[in-house]
């Protein structure tokens, strides 16, 4: 969210709790979404992301005394969905099967008492916005459309209302990969072009990274971390976030002393000794867990390791050819460490080692993330 913005957040959660019987679906959730933002709620199934979206939509109410949901600065805890001026795209699209495409799209306009003369024009415009030919599809029934086309109709039905916030509940889940990639970009463009705030629920970390301005990673009914895609990917706060988003190698050890410059710590861990940067949760004598992304690691011959880098000795276990990169799996102590190496052409410039060779896994001390407990 832009610093110094004076407008109230479009959507805000203040310590929101939601329980179903004994099951806590939202545990003290707080966040705010700025106007025009593409905000994603990301997490595994059962993490509370859909409940959070349903709380915004008004299909669920927070527990009594369980915090406040605000839309455009106004507390809406008790407001019904139809009083909230939102729009939503459902996971299964939820098109009305008994109505034609144009009547589906017109439904919201009719409910909002839009003048009859305006409706056909706006329906047509909405269909064009999602790149559907009105002449071809307007009179069809939802059952006569493919999944991708239904998805577009659902989007048109929501966007035709020109909502200030569009809620999307895993809308791309049912599409095949190619269509999905296409729709990801299209949604992102629509978000920027219309200035509509998008709140997007997904369990697909890649999708969230591709599309979002900011991501709230959820786990066990809480927000585990909230930040830009770069922050989430490059500075995961907990082991859960590091594991859920992208790939990571984890190392555990004990901080035994300060580094030579006095800022960082030296860690005695399985596989060897290494330095880590300063971090508030680390103190001498405490256990430390760090994560290092495969692409931040290097595989080197032990004698080639630069003096200022951490290096753990190991043995090459397997080399996996992925095209753009190579994954070198190195056995370090009991652990298998994955290292991503840029493929510079195995026919012309092959890697200098093969399975079974003794190597060192190396990284710069600052290229690791010190993790807090989950």
């Amino acid at each position, binding site marked *: 969210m832009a610093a110094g913005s004076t407008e109230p957040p479009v959507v805000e959660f203040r310590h929101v709790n939601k329980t179903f019987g004994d099951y806590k679906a939202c545990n003290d959730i707080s966040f705010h979404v700025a106007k025009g933002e593409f905000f994603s709620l990301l997490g595994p199934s059962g993490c509370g992301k859909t409940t959070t979206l349903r709380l915004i939509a008004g299909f669920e109410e927070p527990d009594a005394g369980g915090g406040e949901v605000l839309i455009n600065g106004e507390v809406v805890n008790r407001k019904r969905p139809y009083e909230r001026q939102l729009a939503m795209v459902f996971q299964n699209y*939820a098109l*009305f*099967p008994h109505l034609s495409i*144009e009547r589906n799209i017109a*439904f*919201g306009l009719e*409910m909002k008492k839009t003048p009859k003369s305006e409706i056909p024009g706006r329906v047509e415009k909405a269909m064009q916005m999602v790149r559907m030919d009105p002449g071809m599809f307007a009179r069809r029934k939802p059952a006569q459309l493919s999944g991708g086309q239904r998805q577009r109709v659902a989007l048109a039905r929501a966007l035709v209302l020109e909502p200030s916030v569009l809620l999307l509940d895993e809308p791309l889940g049912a599409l095949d990969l190619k269509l999905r990639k296409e729709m990801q970009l299209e949604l992102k463009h629509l978000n920027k072009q219309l200035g509509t705030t998008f709140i997007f629920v997904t369990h697909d970390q890649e999708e969230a990274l591709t599309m979002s301005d900011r991501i709230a990673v959820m786990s066990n009914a809480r927000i585990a971390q909230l930040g830009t895609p770069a922050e989430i990917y490059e500075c995961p706060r907990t082991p859960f976030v590091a594991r859920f988003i992208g790939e990571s190698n984890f190392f555990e050890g004990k901080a035994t002393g300060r580094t030579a410059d006095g800022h960082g710590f030296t860690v005695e861990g399985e596989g060897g000794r290494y330095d880590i940067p300063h971090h508030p949760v680390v103190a001498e004598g405490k256990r430390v867990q760090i994560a290092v992304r495969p692409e931040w690691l290097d595989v080197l011959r032990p004698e080639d390791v630069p003096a200022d880098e951490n290096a753990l000795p190991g043995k090459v276990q397997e080399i996996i050819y992925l095209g753009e990169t190579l994954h070198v799996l190195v056995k370090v102590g009991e652990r298998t460490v994955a290292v991503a190496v840029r493929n510079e052409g195995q026919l012309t410039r092959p890697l200098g080692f093969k399975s079974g060779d003794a190597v060192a896994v190396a990284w710069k001390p600052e290229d690791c993330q010190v993790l807090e407990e989950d």
Partner: protein
Amino acid sequence: MMPQKLPYWLVAGVATVMLFMHAPLLVLVLFSFNDSKFSMEWKGFTGKWYERLAERQDILDGLYSSVTVGLASTLIATVLGTLMALAIARHEFRGRRMMEALLYVPIVTPEIVVGISLLIMFMAIHFPLGLGSITVAHVAFNISFVAVVVHARLQGMDRNLEEAAMILGADEITAFFRVTVPQLWPGIISGGMLAFTMSFDDYVITSFVAGTDAATLPMVIYTMVKKNIEPSINAISTVVLIATTILIFVSDRFGQEKPLKADKA
């Protein structure tokens, strides 16, 4: 998967089943056109038993009673059964599971038991026996049939549709009538037709609660059989059979199809 061609041994099985189910009915229809007072022998074609129906005031009265009771009990049972189905399918409340199970009780309980218990109840509360008590009795067992059919339809229906309508600006009532009801129509119609058929055909329960004056068509027919056998019984039975068959076919078609409501836009 492509449907496979019917193997010959299954054809034989199906033929046997059809024969068992429908041969007696065929005989009935055939003998309703038999020009003989003693209906065991074929004496040539006639339509006179059908003409005689019009002269039998007791049959016409019975038909009138049956249709009246059928329509009234169907209407009431359809409304109540639909509400019941909505409550069970869409809302969580104490005893919901038990309610769902109890729906099947009137369907599986032997009619004679239902008949006796209704009679005892009417006596206990001093409810006058007649067309009114028959209607109440029919509503009692028909609610179950309607509720089961509508409930099945509701379970196949996407719950998000109502939510979609609400987020698009429809309040609960509007969402119900613009989205839920159009989805439910096939189930409601089909449940209603089933209810009418059950009501129109019922003899056992009806005879228990009818009292002395009222008589529905099945009761009239039964009395005729006991008193004097004449082929006009075959004729009226054929009429009932055909009417019932048509109703069943129509209700079955409603059960399968998407709503027929045409779009205006």
